[in-house]
């Protein structure tokens, strides 16, 4: 079993920046990532992207090139195509078990930075499981990986990623057929006082307005304040029906892209029993972190969107910051850059209150109608969850025992927050009291052969 000073999970901006920082101080670092190449979701495939991708995805994507270049030169031990399926606390730090090319291996690390980013918030609406329905994130993966675009797409939901994707599709020559935007009109009023009047914040807003203008110029119809959304179809999606500003609409389409924001990927921090707390502004559970990203478990850090959604630039800063704290621990020398990075991080986050006020998740998908499927793995509806609450279950893990929600292959990634939300709604208890599923290993399905052949050495 190999062993290093610092282990990092995830090769997005947070993970790459942390690796470069720790390597420049001379520490041994292993970075494990599921993808074949560094970049994470935001800079996916950047080292192999062609001119077409750079044209479609723009300068914010191209920015990632500098990060992967620095990482490539850092001398970090890089383990791509490696899926971490278990993390254990040891006397000397942590042991990661991971699967690569069909075999399992272990690595012991002194400190650990989790940089596994965000997951798209699932959007359980009537009909959301019909073939032809996908998510904005999945469509972007196709763009980044192979410059493939979907034709005749109706985008449903809200948020910066939805607008970015719409603009990218316009550039590609395949503009979406329509955007069904779920932002209540009152949110514009609510968000106004939160406009960040500083260079960083206004920079983000300027970028956003340019994207919106590009979509508008292309003549993409935007239905605002949409509600009562139903995705229609028998064998596959045929249309989206909804009401917008008091009028009923029905848009025929073969493909629908859903999106209403992203949430921290909390699988590893939950497995490690880090303390989490409900954050009403982000409408998600966040691990409780120190200013520099350390969780309630000593030596375990979270950098990037996994600690709360703040975007790629903040992730990079947070990655460096967490690495500097690890370096401080190991060397006993305080690091000069810590203070300025903390300031930078605060500044970069100044746009968040505005975005959070403008783009909260869509209420119809937070507490779906009774017939809507919430847990796809075990096929459990919102109504069944409400019934279980009436039948005395008032905690997420009781509903899991009752209905098997969260026991399927996705390990609760899809239904977890919706289950918490539905129990809170039906029982009147706080989301912190309702809690979240206990996360069991393996974090990703593991072949029995792999476990049977896994050579674990005694310590």
């Amino acid at each position, binding site marked *: 079993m190999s062993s290093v000073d610092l282990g990092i999970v995830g090769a997005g901006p947070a993970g790459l920046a942390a690796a470069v920082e720790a390597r420049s101080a001379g520490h041994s670092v292993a970075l494990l990532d599921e993808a074949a190449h560094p970049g994470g979701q935001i800079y996916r495939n950047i080292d192999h992207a062609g001119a077409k991708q750079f044209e479609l995805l723009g300068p914010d994507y191209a920015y990632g090139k500098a990060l992967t270049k620095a990482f490539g030169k850092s001398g970090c031990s890089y383990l791509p195509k490696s899926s971490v399926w278990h993390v254990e606390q040891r006397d000397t730090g942590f042991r990661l078990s991971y699967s690569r090319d069909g075999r399992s291996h272990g690595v012991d690390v002194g400190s650990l930075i989790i940089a596994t980013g965000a997951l798209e918030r699932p959007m359980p609406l009537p009909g959301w499981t019909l073939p032809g329905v996908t998510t904005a994130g999945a469509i972007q993966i196709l763009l980044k990986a192979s410059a493939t675009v979907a034709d005749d797409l109706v985008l449903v939901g809200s948020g910066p990623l939805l607008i970015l994707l719409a603009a990218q599709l316009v550039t590609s020559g395949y503009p979406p057929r329509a955007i069904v935007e779920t932002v209540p009109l009152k949110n514009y009023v609510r968000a106004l006082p939160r406009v960040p009047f500083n260079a960083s914040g206004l920079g983000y807003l300027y970028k956003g307005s340019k994207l919106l203008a590009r979509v508008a110029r292309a003549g993409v119809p935007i239905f605002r304040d949409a509600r009562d959304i139903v995705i229609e179809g028998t064998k596959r999606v045929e249309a989206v029906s909804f009401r917008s500003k008091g009028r009923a609409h029905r848009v025929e389409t073969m493909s629908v892209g859903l999106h209403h924001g992203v949430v921290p990927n909390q699988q590893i921090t939950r497995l490690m029993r880090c303390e989490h707390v409900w954050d009403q502004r982000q409408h998600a559970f966040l691990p409780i972190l120190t200013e520099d990203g350390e969780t309630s478990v000593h030596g375990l850090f979270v950098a990037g969107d996994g600690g709360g959604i703040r975007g790629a630039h903040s992730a990079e800063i947070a990655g460096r910051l967490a690495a500097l704290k690890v370096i401080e621990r190991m060397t006993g020398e305080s690091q000069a850059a810590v203070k300025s990075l903390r300031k930078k991080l605060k500044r970069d986050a100044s746009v968040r209150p505005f975005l959070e006020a403008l783009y909260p998740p869509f209420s119809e998908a937070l507490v779906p109608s009774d017939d809507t499927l919430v847990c796809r793995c075990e096929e459990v509806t919102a109504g069944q969850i409400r019934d279980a609450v009436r039948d005395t279950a008032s905690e997420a893990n009781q509903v899991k025992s*009752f209905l098997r929600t969260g026991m399927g292959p996705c390990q609760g990634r899809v239904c977890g927050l919706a289950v918490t939300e539905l129990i809170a709604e039906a029982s009147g208890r706080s989301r912190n009291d309702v809690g979240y599923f206990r996360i*069991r290993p*393996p974090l990703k399905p593991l072949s*029995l052969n792999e476990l*049977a052949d896994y050579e674990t050495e005694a310590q």
Partner: protein
Amino acid sequence: MTNTVISDLLVIGGGLHGCSAALFAAKRGMTVTVLEKDEVGQHASGTNAGGVRRLWRDIKEVPLANLSMEMWKSISEIVDDDCGFQQVPQVKVAECSDDMELLADRVALMKKSGFDHERLIDRNEVLSLLPAVNPRVEGGLVSDDGFALPWHTTAAFARKARELGVRIDTRTEARRIQKDGNTWRVTCSDGEYVGAHLLNCAGAWAGQVADQVGDNAPVEPIAPLMIVTQRMKPFCDCVVGTARRPLSFKQMANGTLVIGGARLGRVNTATNRTDVDFSELKHTANTARDVFPIMSKAVIQRAWSGIEARMPDLLPVIGRSEKHENVFHAFGFSAHGFQLGPATGKLVAELIDTGQKAPEIEPFGIKRFSAKPDHSQLLGM
């Protein structure tokens, strides 16, 4: 809550045994309150492998297990819920000829004691019961047993008990237990409970409860490990073990395979925390693959463990306290108590209500763990 709750019987522990005893005590007309520090069935009762097994039990447990099996067959009449109970054979396969001898000795021993529910079968019969089994098996031992859904079973006992008037207070930890005249006063975080009788069904925490009433119970908390796989086409409708290697293997109605078998994780009873140890589960995976070669295609979905109580002799403690007439115990089932839930609850309720100790629970008195004789008394001082 500052009120004092007064009952005929206070049960500490809302697992299967606590809920079962509460149910049967309520049927006898007693007022019963169950104090559960977490949630009903959160630990061993809700997280075990669900085997309803008589096969290969310690011979002292067989009469109790036989009685319980009769109750399992009509479980719906007891709790108005089928508990997912399926009556299927349990098979212990012999992997070599030495194993066959071991199984034959066992059958002889059982016969001598008058028990005939375990039967030796040859290789062909094993293959016809388990078409997917490794054809190299030598034979096996079979009994008419079954399995059920552990969490659902415990929830069903709790639901029925509540219907019969039992009060079950969850998130209610018994912090202090004191004798108060002829009754017992239990102080919890949010109130006091008084009972004419006290029953300790606290599982891995039962040693601490016994200690507070002056009984000695060397309870060792353990965390038996379990694996569940993704769904596979049905290939096994028995519960399967092996003669020598730890294994408990079954395919559920939904196609998933639940695999356990005495491998242990790490446990901390103060924090309710268990940690899965994959270097142990690796052996479970190996055994499962050896017995069913088709398992090389299985995908592990989840691993977990509950928190269970193990006694030094691997037998439960069931019966009256050594020190007090109105204190009773039912704990320490050492990772094979699920099947015993219905009968133990029934007989413990009978013991509390009538003072009659059924022969089935005779061997399990707490006295066998008596602290060393007090020498001062022996010396007449």
